[in-house]
């Protein structure tokens, strides 16, 4: 603020213009004697609220006049009377008229001088690219408005996507526009230019040439990019003494080393869940995490759809069956027909016992109940030769993976439900040993230059390695252990503060590159926008250390592709590759590997390592290993099973919570959603300590405490810093995934911590909300989901909206609850498409999150869920907390034909369109909130505050220009993506054709990997949605309210094994 002397002038401005500094409130102590005197002089009844009021203190009266005392000038200052005020305003209006008041500032139309090919301003373009993620990449089509990427969709032609995406791919667009991204090269925090960096890099390169790379080390995450691999390998050839280390904090070595143990070499496993009649998952969350998860989710649910008419969707003759054994409820486990909570350490025993049952040797001692469970599973597996699948989880140790490989081989599954290929990872190594070697070499002074790419070791490395100490100035040595540390990453994070040079990394939407998918298919990563800041890609940074420091990523990618495909017309090939999003002919063929492993060769189980408690480290469902901590959408995303936002918690099983006396307190709203107070605990583990809020999680194995990774960051930007607790602090190299400990390590601090939980309550109170049944029950009574209480169609004398003849397009949506597992991809997709704001933890605790679609999670007690009727027994309200059945239900606006919200809006801000949409007209809304009050589904969201960020320039680029950005005081809700409906309808109308089925795909439907959501025209008997609505399982939520919802659900059917009572 400039301190400029105010010009001297007579103060004849209207009173409302009084400068703040002119206000003053002389503090006067209350004069009690005067008050008493006044009191004595009064007669009759007097009412007062404060003594000051009674004393008629003029200063206090003045205070009363001001709406915001001491903060703002009073709007109702009476120093200018009404007549003078009006005179003044009239005068200024008249003066304003002279300067052309009445017309808004000019707007300009600024056309291209040379319009880019194919671009029509106002119409978005789609470009194919891919998002690399671990040992996989998801093929994408990114929507670009006038050169700005605004929305990410899956690429239907890409094997890892088939048109769908997961939460990380959807949210990655916000990472591109993250205002906290590092914007330039820095050296020790000071801004440098790229050419300065190049000079330093070239000087280092010259040194390496002479020393043959001695002391040069690279530390990367998993690399699956052929170009990047080629670059690194050529650098390693050029400097033969250099070494390449890898560290990926959330993936683990089990998969890799398990394959090596089983086959003697590293191989990649590709699953075909669509061919499996029975799947047994050993702690594998394969539906939402790990390579291929988007594709596996699609394929798995193709075997779960019961749409008799949609044969194209169904594969195989019967519904598959999923058994899951896991220590903590995961998304995959929640979808299971049978789920067994087992400790992490017991899963290894379980796997051994399983192998023994197949006569493969070895043995595992099990609890008799678990043995019984196992026997039934084995029987089921044996009933479906060659059509079963055993999958081991990413965090499981190598032996469990090797056992799974052995079992799959003996079951004859290889070739049908899974196959093996060359590794997708460019350079598979044991990550823990690789990092250990780097740290040991650093201690021994063998590392002079360290280049860190794409991993945040100070934050994620095991605590006992003390990576920060490796980078810091060493007092004893009198210098740093590593002379030069160069770090390339998108943010100036925990590691960057210890590094000499920090290169700001370009986002994948800003660079050229390539990436392999889970099955080996290569896609070209194509930029959608030039780098927003002075960032550089990893390719450019690595090239700085070679003979070609100016190599662009564009050339790097093209050169390599040309070298790999010498015989083609390259320009044509290049354009086709960019168009399709896949490089033809790069999918890995299956390879033959022979099992070199026998279970009997495994060392006996170490019984003594079991502890009273078992602490598990797991990547967080929304933040992963911490890299997405600053992504507001992912922070606010309610986690699938816990529905927590903005925090992680130490997840504790109900029995353990009882033993340790840990509880939740629900301060308001009956515990439906909002704030939950959790007990805070200190955890002293592995020589370190962390303080966390405890969260009780039904379904978790007894004694298991899960510490989700990714939170508690200190330098993660505005959204990510100081949220939750940092589990990495107690994670050591020999307890990477599980740490057994006595119960005494947990100490209740006696404090409470408020958690923002969007759904704490899971009781339907016998309302017709979530209908579920077993396959048997469904076959006996296919109409189990229909309610007898639905009012008949023509019952009303009133000819309301519901009686409107929807002759042309009748938009409807069908959601298959058999396919929904609560992965939340739809929520992020909707948030991206419709410019939905992030409100922050405080507002989420007031239940003001703005997601237009929410995913409700219900735990059920089987008895009442099938009938949908309340048995009246109080135990119904307490589903078996040890292992409840879990169901998910996405709830967008139901677009009721007989909408309760429309009837009560006093200003007509919500009206019905002629195609059946419940339109929300923001301009008319005055914020009564009666519509939300009347909505039985509670799908309306009110902007209690101006939640939208109007200032940050990056977000202006990101927003979808086809959807209004709402201000404070208006109601909003799902619109069935009316912008997409309008676009498709206009295109069809121009051609004078009806809108084709599938021309309109809502954002949620497009993102869903399981294709659970289908949108279309219910009047078209051949449309997918019409066929789904005709299914017997089809039902509306709470039809007795006569809302005639257009969004209907297909009831969930599980396929339990009748020989197992529900476990």
């Amino acid at each position: 603020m400039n301190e400029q002397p105010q010009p001297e002038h007579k103060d004849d401005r209207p009173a409302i213009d009084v400068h703040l500094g002119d206000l003053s409130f002389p503090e006067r102590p209350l004069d009690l004697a005067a008050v008493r005197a006044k009191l004595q002089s009064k007669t009759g009844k007097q009412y007062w609220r404060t003594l000051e009021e009674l004393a008629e203190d003029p200063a206090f009266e003045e205070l009363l006049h001001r709406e915001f005392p001491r903060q703002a000038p009073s709007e109702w200052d009476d120093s200018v009377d009404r007549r003078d005020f009006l005179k003044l305003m009239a005068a200024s209006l008249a003066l304003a008229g002279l300067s052309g008041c009445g017309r808004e500032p000019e707007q300009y139309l600024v056309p291209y001088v040379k319009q880019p090919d194919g671009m029509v301003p106002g119409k978005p373009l789609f470009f194919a690219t891919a998002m690399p993620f671990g040992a996989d990449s998801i093929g994408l089509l990114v929507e670009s408005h006038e050169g700005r990427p605004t929305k990410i969709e899956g690429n239907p032609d890409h094997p890892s996507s088939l048109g769908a995406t997961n939460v990380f791919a959807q949210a990655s667009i916000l990472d591109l526009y993250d205002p906290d991204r590092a914007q330039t090269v820095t050296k020790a925090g000071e801004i440098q230019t790229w050419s300065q960096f190049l000079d330093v890099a070239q000087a280092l390169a010259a040194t390496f040439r002479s020393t043959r790379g001695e002391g040069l080390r690279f530390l990367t995450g998993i690399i699956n990019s052929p170009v990047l691999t080629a670059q690194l390998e050529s650098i390693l050839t050029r400097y033969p003494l250099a070494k390449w280390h890898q560290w990926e904090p959330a993936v683990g070595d089990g998969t890799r080393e398990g394959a090596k143990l089983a086959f003697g070499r590293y191989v990649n496993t590709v699953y075909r869940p669509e061919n499996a009649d029975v799947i047994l998952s050993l702690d594998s969350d394969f539906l939402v995490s790990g390579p291929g998860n988007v594709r596996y989710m699609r394929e798995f649910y193709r075997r779960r759809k019961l749409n008799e008419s949609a044969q194209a969707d169904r594969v195989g003759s019967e519904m598959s069956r999923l058994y899951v054994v896991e220590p903590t409820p995961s998304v995959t486990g929640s979808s299971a027909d049978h789920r067994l909570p087992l400790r992490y350490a017991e899963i290894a025993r379980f796997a051994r016992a399983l192998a023994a049952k197949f006569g493969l040797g070895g043995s595992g001692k099990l609890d008799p109940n678990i043995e019984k469970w196992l026997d039934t599973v084995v029987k089921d597996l044996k009933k479906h030769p060659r059509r079963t699948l055993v999958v081991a989880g990413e965090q499981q140790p190598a032996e469990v993976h090797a056992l799974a490989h052995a079992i799959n081989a003996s079951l004859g599954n290889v070739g049908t439900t899974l196959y093996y290929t060359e590794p997708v990872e460019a350079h598979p190594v044991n990550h823990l040993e690789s990092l250990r070697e780097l740290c040991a070499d650093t201690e021994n002074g063998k590392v002079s230059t360290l280049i860190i790419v794409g991993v945040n070791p100070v934050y994620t490395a095991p605590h006992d390695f003390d990576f920060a100490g490796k980078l810091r100035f060493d007092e004893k040595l009198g210098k740093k252990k590593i002379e030069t540390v160069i770090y390339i990453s998108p943010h100036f994070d925990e590691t960057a503060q210890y590094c000499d040079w920090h290169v700001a990394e370009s986002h994948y939407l800003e660079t050229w590159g390539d990436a392999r998918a889970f099955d080996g298919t290569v896609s070209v990563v194509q930029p959608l926008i030039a780098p927003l800041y002075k960032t550089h890609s990893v390719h450019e940074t690595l090239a700085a250390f070679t003979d070609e420091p100016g190599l662009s990523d564009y050339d790097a990618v093209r050169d390599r592709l040309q070298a790999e495909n010498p015989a083609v017309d390259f320009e044509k090939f290049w354009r086709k590759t960019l168009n399709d999003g896949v490089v033809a002919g790069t999918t890995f063929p299956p390879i033959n590997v022979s099992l070199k492993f026998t279970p009997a060769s495994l060392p006996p189980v170490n019984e003594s390592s079991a502890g009273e408690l078992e602490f598990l480290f797991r990547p967080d469902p929304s933040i992963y290993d911490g890299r997405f901590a600053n992504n507001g959408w992912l922070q606010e995303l309610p986690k699938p099973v816990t529905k927590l936002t903005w925090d992680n918690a130490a997840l504790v099983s109900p029995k353990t919570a009882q033993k340790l006396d840990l509880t939740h307190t629900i301060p308001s709203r009956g515990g439906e959603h909002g704030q939950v107070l959790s007990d805070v605990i200190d955890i002293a583990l592995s020589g370190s300590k962390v303080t966390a809020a405890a969260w009780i999680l039904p379904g978790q194995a007894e004694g298991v405490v899960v510490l989700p990774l990714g939170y508690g960051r200190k330098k993660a930007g505005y959204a990510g810093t100081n949220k939750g607790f940092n589990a990495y602090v107690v994670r050591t190299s020999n307890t990477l995934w599980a740490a057994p400990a006595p119960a005494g390590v947990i100490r209740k601090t006696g404090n409470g911590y408020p958690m923002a939980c969007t759904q704490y309550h899971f009781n339907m109170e016998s309302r017709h909300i979530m209908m579920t049944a077993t396959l048997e029950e469904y076959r006996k009574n296919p109409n189990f989901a229909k309610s007898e209480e639905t009012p008949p169609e023509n019952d009303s004398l009133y000819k309301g909206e519901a009686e409107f003849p929807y002759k042309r397009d009748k938009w409807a949506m069908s959601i298959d609850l058999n396919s929904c597992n609560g992965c939340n991809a739809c929520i992020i997709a909707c948030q991206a498409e419709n410019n939905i704001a992030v409100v922050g933890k405080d507002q989420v605790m007031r239940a003001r999150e703005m997601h237009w679609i929410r995913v409700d999670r219900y735990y059920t007690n089987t008895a009442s869920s099938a009938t949908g009727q309340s048995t009246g027994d109080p135990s119904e309200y307490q589903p078996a907390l040890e292992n409840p059945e879990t169901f998910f239900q996405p709830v967008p606006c139901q677009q009721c034909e007989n909408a309760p919200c429309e009837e009560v809006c006093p200003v007509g801000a919500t009206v019905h369109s002629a195609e059946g949409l419940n339109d929300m007209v923001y301009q008319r809304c005055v914020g009564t909130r009666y519509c939300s009050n009347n909505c039985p589904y509670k799908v309306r969201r009110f902007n209690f505050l101006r939640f939208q960020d109007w200032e940050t320039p990056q977000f202006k680029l990101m927003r979808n220009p086809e959807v209004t950005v709402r201000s404070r005081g208006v109601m909003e809700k799902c619109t069935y993506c009316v912008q997409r409906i309008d676009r498709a309808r206009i295109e069809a109308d121009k051609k004078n054709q009806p809108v084709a089925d599938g021309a309109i795909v809502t954002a949620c439907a497009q993102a869903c990997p399981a294709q659970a959501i289908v949108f279309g025209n219910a009047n078209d008997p051949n449309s997918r949605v019409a066929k789904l609505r005709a299914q017997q399982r089809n039902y509306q939520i709470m039809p007795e309210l006569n809302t005639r919802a257009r969004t209907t659900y297909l009831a969930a059917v599980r396929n339990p094994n009748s020989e197992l009572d529900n476990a």
Partner: protein
Amino acid sequence: MNCHSVLFKNADYLEPVRESYRTGESIKWIKIHRLADFVYFDHSIHVNKGIGCSTCHGRVDEMPLVFQANTLLMQWCIDCHRNPEPYLRPMDQVYVMDWRPGPNQEELGKEFARERNLRTTAELTSCSTCHR
């Protein structure tokens, strides 16, 4: 510059066009027909259904300086959306500036509406048609 590489290529009046082409800087045209930000207007559907240019924009060919010939307020749009037949032209007349409806416009309009599958009044005046 397409047309103006040939037509009036040396006229003083067209100097801004040549300047733009030379320097690559776009011409900043002042937007005359402005709608509020909360109106999502699609031009192509109007043209494709046979609403002529001069119907909404007036006689641009006779304007020495383009001005807004109609109010462009919602009431004005709704008047046509409620009753589009008087304004529908034969498709070859859409760009003709001096087109006037003939005496048989009523039946012609009804015929055009039918063959072009024009949306009903209820659909044309649904809020989400123009506002999202």
